[in-house]
């Protein structure tokens, strides 16, 4: 019960509400105060119930732990001299969970639809420069939060993103998806997770963009590149470009 603030507040409300209701009933004989005490008891009980469902590790703590992994990835990418933005690949293009491919050269506009080996450095095309590094991202883990695969329609993608970002991770209040001239735009309202400070974010995108790109790739069953992302007035927008596969 005491493992987080909800438990402490719940206990305080429970004790205070019981005292208020009992005093108001027995001493003052004033029903509205009794009702207020009962309301505090109900709120306290709900707060304690919520404290049991809260994950043992908070989001900020999780980000702190994941930052170590980001630092290592950033070091590898920098050492290899990679600068091109990552391509988020669906499971059909990989021999395993969805990952991001950081290509050696920029401007990759198609990737062969054959499962790439589950290795760090892979060849994704016939040319000598069609080489890249496969990286697991936040999206690779987030996709496991879904109960079923992402459907091909835009509404399916919107539903999947809401399920992950709003219901499961609780880092946004709503998500909207629409198509504009071949590019996908995803708008996330009131995001609580915005990190564009780490050097690797220039290649992989922010954590929210990585989740969006991973799910979009699954929905479209095609690689996806993050074209642009920006945040303004409590809204985070991400533009994605599907890449041809064949």
């Amino acid at each position: 019960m005491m493992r987080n603030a909800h438990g402490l507040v719940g206990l305080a409300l429970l004790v205070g509400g019981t005292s208020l209701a009992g005093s108001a009933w027995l001493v003052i004989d004033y029903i509205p105060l009794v009702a207020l005490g009962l309301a505090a008891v109900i709120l306290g009980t709900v707060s304690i119930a919520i404290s049991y469902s809260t994950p043992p590790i908070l989001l900020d703590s999780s980000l702190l732990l994941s930052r170590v992994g980001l630092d290592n990835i950033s070091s590898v990418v920098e050492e290899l001299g990679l600068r091109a933005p990552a391509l988020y690949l669906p499971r059909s293009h990989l021999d395993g969970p969805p990952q991001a491919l950081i290509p050696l050269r920029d401007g990759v506009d198609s990737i062969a639809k054959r499962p790439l080996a589950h290795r760090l450095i892979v060849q994704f095309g016939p040319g000598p420069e069609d080489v890249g590094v496969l990286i697991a991202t936040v999206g690779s883990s987030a996709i496991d939060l879904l109960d079923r695969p992402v459907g091909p329609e835009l509404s399916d993608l919107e539903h999947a993103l809401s399920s992950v970002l709003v219901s499961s991770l609780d880092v946004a209040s709503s998500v909207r998806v629409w198509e504009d001239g071949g590019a996908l735009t995803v708008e996330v309202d009131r995001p609580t997770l915005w990190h564009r400070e780490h050097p690797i974010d220039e290649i992989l995108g922010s954590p929210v963009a990585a989740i969006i790109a991973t799910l979009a790739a699954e929905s479209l069953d095609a690689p996806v590149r993050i074209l642009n992302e920006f945040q303004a007035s409590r809204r985070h927008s991400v533009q994605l470009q599907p890449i041809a596969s064949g």
Partner: protein
Amino acid sequence: MKQRNEYLLALGVAFIGITVTLGAFGADRLELYLGIFVVEYVALTFMFAYLRNWPGRILNGISFVLITAFALALVARAATVIVSLNLS
């Protein structure tokens, strides 16, 4: 965490709002307050039930207790009325 806090805030505002409003109008029937609390609680809990790791069983238990308390308050009030009618 944010959605859970919003749920608690909505419950608190709803409970306090209706208590103050009914108190201002001089309502002194506890079963009236309980009945409205039940409606508010069930409606708000249903609205937020989509969240992951939702403590559904405990919150449903609270619903059951509230409804039972409301029913008992109604029965007690009815018994009081019947007894007073019989005495008169």
